């Protein structure tokens, strides 16, 4: 068994120094992106305005902001599920103009297929790629092992707990070895304990695979717990307010004092935006 498996190959690749040019090249580049939505009464809502950002290869980027500021919209745009009103998005220097397997999304509802077993779910993306049965089975098992679910390979989805479902979704997306993995508030529905566990799990998996991850959440502590950087969006129109680098040692713990300190900084700025959002709600209500 000297054959290196895909995961170890990916890990070692993270340590091989790429060319300097590549080092400077971001994995994903969002350049001056805006997104407007038409409203039923004929006006339009500017959900996102002039967003520019770069995601580095292997980076864990968290995006936070008040509800309705356009986090999900931004994520859909980056994942190629939606097209910007103006501006451009590049993956490895190539313009993104539609969904591709290089851009994988885990939605809050996960969308695991109940008619398939756990293993078949993880195999799904590989099957769609046309990978042959024996090989994809082997690869899927590797990723199930990675998320510690190999003994549940033949279970059906409804037989799993919330945290286990999260891990299946993670394995299913990772198995396709996407360029960027997007996650939209994936842990919002979990209880605090399971969420803690998922944080550990995700951090470990991210380290082992070197996967580039963009993670949307409204939970500041979660963002600081996980991210290399935390990007804060403003409320309507959604713009980049501040990008906080999180230079804390890993593995991190939610109770760490440093972590709480950084989270407070982010939270202070987020509060301003939430207040803006609340004021706007009230002024709308007053008009009606």
């Amino acid at each position, binding site marked *: 068994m000297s054959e290196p498996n895909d995961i170890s190959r990916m890990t070692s690749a993270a340590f091989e120094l790429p060319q300097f040019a590549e080092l400077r090249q971001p994995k994903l580049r969002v350049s001056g992106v805006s997104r407007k939505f038409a409203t039923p009464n004929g006006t339009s809502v500017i959900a996102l305005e002039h967003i520019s950002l770069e995601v580095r290869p292997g980076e864990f980027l968290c995006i936070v902001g008040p509800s309705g500021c356009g986090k999900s919209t931004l994520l859909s745009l980056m*994942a190629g*599920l939606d097209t910007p009103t103006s501006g451009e998005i590049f993956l490895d220097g190539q313009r993104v103009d539609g*969904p591709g*397997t290089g*851009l*994988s*999304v885990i*939605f809050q*509802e*996960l*969308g*695991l*297929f*109940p*008619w*398939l077993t756990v293993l078949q779910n993880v195999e*799904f*993306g590989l*099957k*769609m*790629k046309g990978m042959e049965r024996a090989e994809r089975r082997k690869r899927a098992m590797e990723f199930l092992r990675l998320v510690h679910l190999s003994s549940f390979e033949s279970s*059906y*989805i*409804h*037989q799993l707990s919330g945290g286990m479902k999260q891990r299946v979704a993670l394995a*299913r*997306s990772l198995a*396709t070895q996407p360029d960027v993995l997007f996650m939209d508030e994936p842990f919002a529905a979990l209880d605090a304990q399971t969420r803690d566990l998922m944080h550990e799990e995700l951090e470990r998996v991210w380290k082992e695979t070197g996967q580039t991850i963009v993670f949307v959440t409204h939970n500041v502590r979660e963002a600081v717990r996980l991210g290399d950087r935390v990007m804060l969006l403003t409320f309507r129109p959604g713009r980049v307010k501040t990008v906080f680098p999180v230079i804390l040692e890993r593995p991190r713990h939610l109770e760490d004092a440093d972590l709480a300190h950084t989270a407070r900084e982010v939270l202070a700025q987020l509060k301003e935006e939430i207040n803006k959002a609340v004021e706007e709600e009230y002024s709308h209500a007053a008009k009606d």
Partner: protein
Amino acid sequence: MRRRIEKLIFFFCLLAVWQVIYKMKIWSPFLFPSPFEVFDALRLGFGDRTFLIGVGISMRRIAIGYGISIVLGLALGLLIAMNDFLENTIGSLVLSLQSLPSICWLPLALLWFGLSEAAILFVVVMGSLLAVTINTESGVRNVPKIYMLAGRNLGANGARLFLHVLLPASLPYLISGLKQGWAFAWRSLIAGEMIYGSLGLGFLLMMGRDLNDMSQVLAVMGLIMFLGYVVDRVFFVNVERHIRSRWGFAPTS
């Protein structure tokens, strides 16, 4: 187990009451035969193979007619679900036709196809096609968007998205449609065969009437009931239960 025993005792009592009423001789035995006589009629019918042939012919017809309905109904339902224009036009046509009892198609079928096998099949198809279509359509429409999103995101599109996501995701609804379609097909077939049908169960029923043989009428009725029940309760209910438990949701219908 207890429920099964309850059921058994109930049916036994029903037969007993029947026998008692028969013994009281309220009606003439020609009009009200005893359960034993009906049982004899059954034995006789199967003995001289007329019932066997009748069942065989009816089964063949339903297999063809219902088969056509499934294929057409699934295709039509899918098309309607995926196209707004078709939904608005063909969709409303299907819904309005659904209110027509299927036997209403027989005069038309007889004029078009004459006294033929095709006329009966036509009635069976018209009886069940619409139910299959309507259920397929609502099934496909009810597939949670998240499955399609996830499927597309994992690289499925076009035919593969259809085959590997849309179809299995809507299977619980499709089965309800097929079940309902079966019920309509069975009823339409027997009705059609009673009015016109060489051999077949509906025909045997009418023959019983022509011969003034109440035992045969009841025997054939029992047979029709039994076959319909077996397919509906035993086959479809089990398939439905299997799918629902696999998909992880509680039975609704």
